[in-house]
């Protein structure tokens, strides 16, 4: 079992690197015959690449979905914000203690209409990851979110949240400043809203850290995102005292978009381009854009009071039991 997306995709990544190199060589080739030969070779490699992708994506298990959701070239919140919205103006500060770069927030325009954005933000390189704390938000992140929700309410801005976090920050400092209270209060403030709220799970929907900003009227989930009550490794550690059995735990937890939809816990799956969102970020973004716009249009038909009731009823109905 591969531990990371890079390990799992080793062969494919190698092939892609090869193709890139061959393309560079072909560009430099002056002999038209040799260029033709190279071009045919590239085409063959491309074909092989596509076959591999097809094969990989035809037999994705839950663990593979975990790896895909965590893949580092996968588009992150700000990638979608930049692709879909204009004039995003990041606002900072919880007005209590500090600023938290694991959650980004602020108003932006969606097709000329202002909305309020809140989303977890991952980093791509070591510096960015440290700066973003691996998208593990501290209390300050959730309290910033609450401030944004409150502004959205007062200024009648629809809210769009992007979910992509392994978990909330579990450190001593987060505990001491009330990470639990911050998450709960953030959810509570979402339930107060009388404006439309749409959440999109774009990568890792990691337990409390995720639901803290995902109490939406409409919850969308990308095809290869995951949503789980506990990280599969943590689950395996508890169940079998063996964190390496993450793949078994992933399957048991039913953390895929498909399962979430079947259980009625999300509203819609957003299909990703062949090879996943990172294979064609613009296409992925277009799907996300259309889904957000469509959802907001649907929700805008409801009155303010109805929007709040709708959100309540939605989550109120979740739970499977008999009596």
């Amino acid at each position: 079992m591969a531990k990371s997306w890079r390990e799992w995709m080793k062969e494919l990544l190698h092939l892609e690197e090869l193709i890139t190199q061959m393309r560079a060589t072909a560009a430099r080739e002056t002999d038209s015959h040799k260029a033709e030969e190279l071009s045919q070779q590239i085409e063959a490699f491309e074909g092989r690449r596509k076959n591999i992708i097809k094969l990989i994506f035809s037999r994705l298990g839950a663990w593979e979905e975990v790896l895909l959701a965590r893949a580092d070239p996968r588009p992150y919140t700000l990638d979608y914000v930049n692709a879909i919205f204009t004039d995003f103006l990041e606002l900072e500060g919880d007005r209590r203690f500090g600023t938290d770069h694991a959650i980004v927030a602020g108003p932006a325009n969606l097709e000329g209409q202002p909305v309020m954005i809140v989303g977890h933000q991952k980093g791509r390189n070591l510096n960015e990851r440290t700066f973003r704390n691996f998208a593990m938000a501290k209390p300050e992140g959730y309290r910033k979110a609450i401030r944004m929700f409150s502004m959205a309410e007062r200024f009648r801005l629809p809210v769009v949240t992007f979910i992509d976090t392994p978990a909330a920050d579990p450190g001593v400092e987060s505990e001491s400043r009330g990470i639990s209270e911050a998450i709960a209060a953030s959810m509570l403030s979402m339930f107060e809203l009388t404006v439309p709220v749409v959440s999109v799970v774009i990568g890792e929907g990691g337990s409390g850290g995720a639901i803290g900003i995902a109490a939406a009227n409409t919850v969308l989930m990308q095809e290869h995102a995951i949503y789980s009550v506990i990280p599969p490794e943590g689950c395996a550690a508890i169940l079998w005292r063996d964190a390496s059995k993450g793949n078994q735990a992933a399957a048991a937890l039913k953390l895929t978009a498909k399962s979430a939809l079947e259980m009625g816990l999300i509203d819609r799956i957003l299909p990703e381009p062949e090879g996943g969102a990172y294979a064609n970020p613009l296409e992925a973004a277009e799907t996300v854009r259309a889904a957000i716009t469509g959802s907001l249009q649907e929700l805008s038909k409801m009155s303010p009071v109805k929007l709040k009731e709708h959100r309540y009823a939605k989550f109120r109905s979740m739970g499977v039991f008999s009596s």
Partner: protein
Amino acid sequence: MPDFGAAHWYPQGPMRSGKPSPAGRFVQCQGCKKTLFATDFEANFKVCPYCSHHHRLNWSERIAYTFDEDSFQEMDADLVSSDPLAFPDYKPKHDAARSKTGMEDSVACGIARLIDMPVSVAVSDFHFMGGSMGSVAGEKVTRTLERGCDMRCPVIIFCASGGARMQEGLVSLMQMAKTTAAVERCRSHGIPYISVFTDPTMAGVLASYASVADVILAEPKALVGFAGARVSKQAQVVKAPDDFQQAEWVLRSGMLDRIVERRDMRSTLGELVRMLGAHLRQGAAVVA
């Protein structure tokens, strides 16, 4: 869900009866390890007279120690989990918990009277699968909060939980949102909601309905935290204090209103309900 320590003193037989243990039986204090007469121990609310260790209670003991005698009417007792994920070993574990505790799931709820005032009540029992919150616990907590709104009476919830119930997967996670939504409903209806953190109150329960109560009380030394202490302390620059995640530390961190000894819990809750719920009894208009 981490292991928060076995319940050595857990009494034999089903809990539902709530009968006192037979006289002459001894128990060992989990704090100071002294041997105590079971009858004295129970007369002292299962608090050690030597070291003041507050031993965990089951739900019926909690009810008996807190609310007016025989005033508790259990509701929704018939809700049973459905194992929505067909999760490995969930069914047998769940069955074992049922037969051990006599409960159908980790929360008991209903209505009761507290010093003659009506209250909507839920009690989480740690002995049932670590008090974890799945669909049934989430539903019962939600109904308890809604009942407060419907009956216009204060809500009291005793928390004792390792967190969300892993075995129900995402359905459990959604109980965090569901119960928190119900707290918001109480808030906008002017219904006072008091939560009590007992040992332990953790993770998905702490990060949802437990922490957004109007008033939060805790029992002395109760373990209260988002992450298991091991996780929190891992790779941290900041050193955790000695009483990290203990109620006393949580109070200093600003997350609690008071630490209340078990013997004072009934009177403290009574005063809160009387004062914060006065407007409900007077039928005063509530401004949303």
